């Protein structure tokens, strides 16, 4: 049983660099495999233009894909376990939109106060902080709701309502903003994997590292949460402390990714289920690393598909993740309905 988990983890660890290289190859400008290895291992001899494309565009984008896939999947895994809801995820329960509210308040609010500050004055760190606070507040809101309502579908509908309400608030904020702050905010909302710069990666990478590390260190808490809070408490777990740790990690992961890439849906719901199925295990010391690997792989694949290999068009990556993730979500709903429960 443990053997199976290790084999699966080894397989995904092997696939990850393969798809990383493929993601570097694919793009509107063709770069061959030897050229890529040339740039990676001997950049002084490679063509300067190719080095520029690889180091300034494709590598940051591929790394962002890996970080966002890993972060959203681990965030989704933690939410599914703590809320004991197979359909929980950062996007669907409004945690991502909470992050965008945080950024909107920061950019539009401070912009209004300072009389037209531009986005560059708002540092990457403050954007991440605002996004994490926003997602953390939504997590607390969902916690309050789910302590009263146990019905999974009802919580889901409430999550969708929360997202809509937050979008409305953001719209209203935009309406009252002056032109220059509005412009910097709109630029932010168009964020995608490709818009993350090397400089922003120096903020994103440590955030995701801390978030996933905390998630891995709270594996034992998460295992106990599987049985519900009463069981967890009866086994000697400090539920409040454990929940705080898990929410801290979830808010950082979902918030930081949303801060730089915009909302990316359905990876957070789908990947934990793939991980559980692949490993045939519910132990988080295995599921956290598996979600990191599978999530990263899913995002790389989504990014490759969004390039529409062979064409010059690029799809929004959010649409690709939705098309990949939604069939899995439908499958979860049908499977659980057949067993007459969720």
């Amino acid at each position: 049983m443990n053997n199976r988990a290790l084999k699966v983890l080894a397989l995904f660890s092997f696939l990850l660099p393969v798809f990383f290289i493929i993601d570097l190859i694919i793009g509107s400008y063709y770069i061959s495999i030897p050229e890529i290895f040339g740039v990676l291992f001997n950049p002084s001899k490679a063509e300067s233009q190719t080095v520029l494309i690889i180091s300034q565009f494709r590598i940051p984008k591929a790394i962002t894909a890996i970080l966002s896939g890993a972060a959203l999947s681990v965030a989704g895994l933690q939410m599914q376990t703590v809320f004991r809801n197979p359909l929980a995820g950062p996007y669907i329960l409004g945690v991502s939109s909470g992050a965008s509210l945080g950024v909107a308040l920061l950019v539009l609010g401070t912009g209004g106060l300072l009389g037209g500050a531009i986005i560059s004055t708002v540092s990457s760190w403050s954007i991440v902080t605002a996004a994490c606070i926003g997602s953390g507040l939504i997590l607390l809101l969902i916690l309050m709701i789910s302590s009263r309502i146990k019905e999974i579908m009802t919580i889901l509908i409430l999550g969708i309502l929360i997202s809509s309400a937050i979008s409305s608030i953001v719209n209203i904020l935009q309406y009252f903003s002056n032109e220059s702050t509005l412009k910097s905010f709109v630029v932010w909302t168009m964020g995608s994997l490709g818009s993350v710069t090397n400089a922003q990666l120096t903020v994103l990478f440590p955030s995701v590292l801390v978030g996933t590390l905390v998630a891995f260190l709270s594996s034992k808490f998460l295992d106990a949460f599987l049985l519900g809070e009463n069981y967890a408490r009866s086994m000697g777990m400090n539920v409040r402390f454990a929940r705080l740790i898990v929410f801290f990690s979830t808010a950082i992961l979902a918030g930081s990714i949303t801060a730089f890439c915009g909302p990316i849906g359905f990876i957070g719901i789908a990947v934990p289920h793939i991980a559980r199925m692949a490993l045939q295990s519910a132990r988080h010391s295995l599921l956290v690393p598996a979600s990191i690997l599978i999530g990263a792989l899913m995002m790389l694949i989504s990014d490759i598909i969004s390039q529409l290999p062979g064409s010059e068009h690029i799809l929004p990556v959010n649409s690709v993740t939705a098309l990949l993730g939604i069939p899995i979500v439908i499958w979860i709903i049908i499977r659980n309905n057949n067993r007459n429960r969720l």
Partner: protein
Amino acid sequence: MISTQQEKIISLENTSIGYKWKSGSQNIVKSEISVHALKGELVALIGENGVGKSTLLKTIAGFQPTVSGEIRILGKSILNYHEKELALLQSFVSTEIIHVTNLSVFDLVALGRYPHTNWFGKLLASDCDLIEECILNVGLKGYENRLVDHLSDGERQKVMIARALAQNTRIIVLDEPTAFLDLSNKYEIVHILHRLASEKGKTILFSTHDLSTAIAESDRIWLMLNDTVCQGAPEDLILNGKFSNIFPNKQLYFDQERGDFRIRKENKRIATVKGNGLAFEWTIKALIRNGYEIITSSDESCIQVLVEYPEWTIIHKSKPAKFNSILTLCRFLNESDE
């Protein structure tokens, strides 16, 4: 008179349970509870729905505070235990059915080792041996790698008990462990609990609605009535008539001979039954169910039933009628009555 001086594992003295709100108002579910439990005892908590069984168990498990008075575990108030200390003394099994996908029986039972393992929950060889032993103890050997989601309700409940065992505590508290189970599983679970209490010296407290299994297997009963909570061996409570107070003013009465509840019926019709053996006994039961009072003197005016298994004869008024089952006999009686 001899009274035992054994150490009380769980004890409540004039304890009130219920809910306290932040506004200061309180909702007392049950006040002045004074009961206790000793080492090696299987204790059944019995009472009508809504009388506060779950609240009492949750309070003992430490999930909610008492309204007044205290609950003592091994002589020390539950409030003075750190949650981790309490987890080493007391484990809990809730009434809720746990649904977790891809969780194996072994991994679920292993969760019971939570308070004993390190930060990462690493299982040592001794932990694994104990987990195997607990799985064996509830009769699920060979189920280790099965997924919990694919088990029957009875098997799942046994796994939850094995998890509590793996926690290796002196006390196990179970909230309606037999609620969703069929009759044979009910008996099996309560029997397992009894065995664990007497063989391993654990104190096991469980709530149940199933009086017959509780009377058959438990050493002590905490009986929650509307006004008071009393305790004793099941037989003590039968003899002093306390059981009759569980459902006051209802159509149920406690049959002190059978040790179970029966529905009160107005016996308007009378019958005499002749015969012997098992068929005779069950014929009487069937007639009582159908509203007959059974009398011994043979009055010519009442219905006489002659039992000669596998044949029954009714002698009434004019001609005798013969039947080959109790079912047809009862149907005939009901139809002729209309």
